[in-house]
């Protein structure tokens, strides 16, 4: 990693951090690449790429099977990656950190395993309008199967959750689980998860947190939040694609039936039936993505060295600058809260120009943003828009990137004409 000698302790210089990311050194369409889509997927520092390379050069074998040295070595690396994950989210027990492909798979695991075993006709699952489709669709499938109901907590004008509605559902219905995103991927709202968990627990409901947009960007402590499940993806936190994590309270995970059946998740198989392995193997059927877990471990080391408080402080600064700078572009409408509860995501529209046209023109200026419904169609409906443009920031983005975005938006206005 770069040495950050000129910055005060507890902070870092994003322009120096950017030097650690080979992919960000290139130009696209003859312009320097300005990558503002980390909420969709983050880029990878050299140390992560090298960790993957080293794993496949020197350590690759199937785990938990071979009695030979290489297999034991790969198994040790896999276990070490799990321990890093546990420390990163302050999980009391690494065995409660289940490796999955991504946050989507983690959320599906909870819905299919816990949901099928625990939801009864007449039960309610409370979700919010800020959820990503991955925390909606699995519940729609499983509640339909079980005869249970989904309620959605609405947002206020600033894009903050209406906790009074949560209280109403908790008071008037048999709520078994509250599923809430820690940070809204489309608006950047940081939800008061600890507060929501306290209210849900008081009503006897479990709390499932989608941490895909929070774990990469701020300190997340599952014990301090006092939640029951946390799902997140490695690829959004500088790690490889294909690895994600479900953390669950140990006694809940132990009581849950398996999600996928196969090798590694059994204790004994007979023609009459099978018994299950202990955690976490019970939920890790088949050969896992060991190399990607090792890569995630390297990403966690990198983030830990930067310091998650510093990561959050950096994003707080850059999003404040972005909100200020974009507000100066005529025709821009900004969505989401402004304040301490805003993560490094800026959703916006420009006049009535379709976000795909905005994104195409920005692309020609080397600026990569996301345009669309951000897998949050219920939220788009609620906001009364078909789609928005979204810029999202991470450790390698500096104010220079925000300036390039703002300048490129002026190009969009020039092409479409004022009041287009």
């Amino acid at each position, binding site marked *: 990693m770069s040495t950050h000698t000129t910055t005060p302790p507890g902070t870092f210089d994003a322009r120096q951090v950017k030097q650690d990311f080979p992919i960000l050194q290139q130009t696209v369409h003859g312009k320097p690449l300005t990558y503002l889509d980390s909420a969709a997927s983050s880029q990878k520092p050299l140390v992560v790429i090298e960790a993957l390379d080293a794993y496949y050069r020197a350590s690759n074998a199937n785990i938990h099977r071979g009695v030979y040295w290489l297999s034991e070595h790969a198994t040790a690396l896999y276990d070490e990656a799990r321990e890093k994950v546990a420390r990163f989210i302050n999980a009391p027990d690494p065995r409660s950190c289940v490796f999955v492909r991504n946050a989507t798979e983690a959320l599906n695991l909870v819905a299919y395993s816990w949901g099928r075993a625990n939801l009864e006709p007449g039960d309610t699952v409370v979700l919010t309008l800020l959820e990503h489709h991955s925390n909606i669709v699995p519940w729609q499938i499983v509640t339909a199967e079980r005869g249970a109901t989904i309620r959605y907590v609405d947002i206020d004008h600033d894009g903050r959750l209406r906790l009074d509605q949560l209280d109403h559902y908790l008071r008037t219905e048999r709520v078994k689980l509250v599923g809430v995103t820690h940070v809204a991927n489309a608006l950047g709202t940081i939800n008061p998860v600890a507060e929501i968990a306290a209210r849900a627990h008081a009503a006897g409901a479990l709390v499932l947190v989608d941490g895909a947009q929070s774990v990469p960007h701020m300190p997340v402590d599952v014990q301090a939040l006092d939640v029951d499940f946390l799902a997140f993806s490695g690829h959004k936190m500088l790690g490889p694609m294909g690895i994600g994590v479900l953390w669950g309270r140990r006694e809940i995970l132990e009581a849950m039936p398996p999600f996928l059946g196969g090798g590694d998740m059994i204790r004994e198989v007979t023609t009459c039936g099978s018994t299950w392995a202990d955690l976490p193997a019970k939920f890790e059927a088949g050969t896992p993505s060991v190399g990607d877990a090792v890569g995630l471990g390297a990403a966690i080391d990198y983030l830990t060295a930067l310091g998650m408080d510093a990561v959050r402080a950096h994003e707080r600064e850059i999003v404040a600058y972005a909100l200020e700078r974009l507000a100066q572009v005529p025709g821009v409408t900004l969505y989401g809260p402004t304040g301490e509860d805003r993560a490094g995501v800026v959703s916006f529209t420009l006049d009535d120009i*379709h976000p*795909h046209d905005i994104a*195409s*023109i920005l692309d*020609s200026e080397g600026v990569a943003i996301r345009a669309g*419904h951000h897998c949050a169609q219920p939220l788009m409906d609620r906001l009364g828009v078909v789609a928005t443009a979204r810029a999202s920031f991470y450790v390698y983005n500096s104010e220079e990137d925000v300036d390039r975005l703002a300048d490129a938006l002026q*190009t969009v206005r020039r092409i479409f004409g004022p009041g287009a």
Partner: protein
Amino acid sequence: MADLYRENILDHYRNPRNYGTIENADISYEDSNPLCGDRVRIDMRIEDGKIAEIKFTGRGCAISQASASMLTEMVEGADLDEIRELSAQDILDELGVPISPARVKCALLGLKVLKSAAYGITDWPEH
């Protein structure tokens, strides 16, 4: 500069040709791109086996709306076989700008609607 947004495309987007609906149309069809919400509806009046009148309405990005507008000009007076033979490349050629893979669906939405309308029937309606 953005090659995609040449003046003829922006002109069709700002001043769409054949924009509107046809009362008592012989054929109407509507479709959308679920991913981006682009939407196009095409109404047609048929006379002597040919498109006597075609109008479209829609909303969405400049590429989807401009290509639908261009398409209506291309097929005025065409018969059913000509519509069926119309290819994606014909539309892309008419647009005359490089369309990236991510935007092809936008560019071809109008054609998809027109083809769906044409393939949905075995023959033009009789009068």
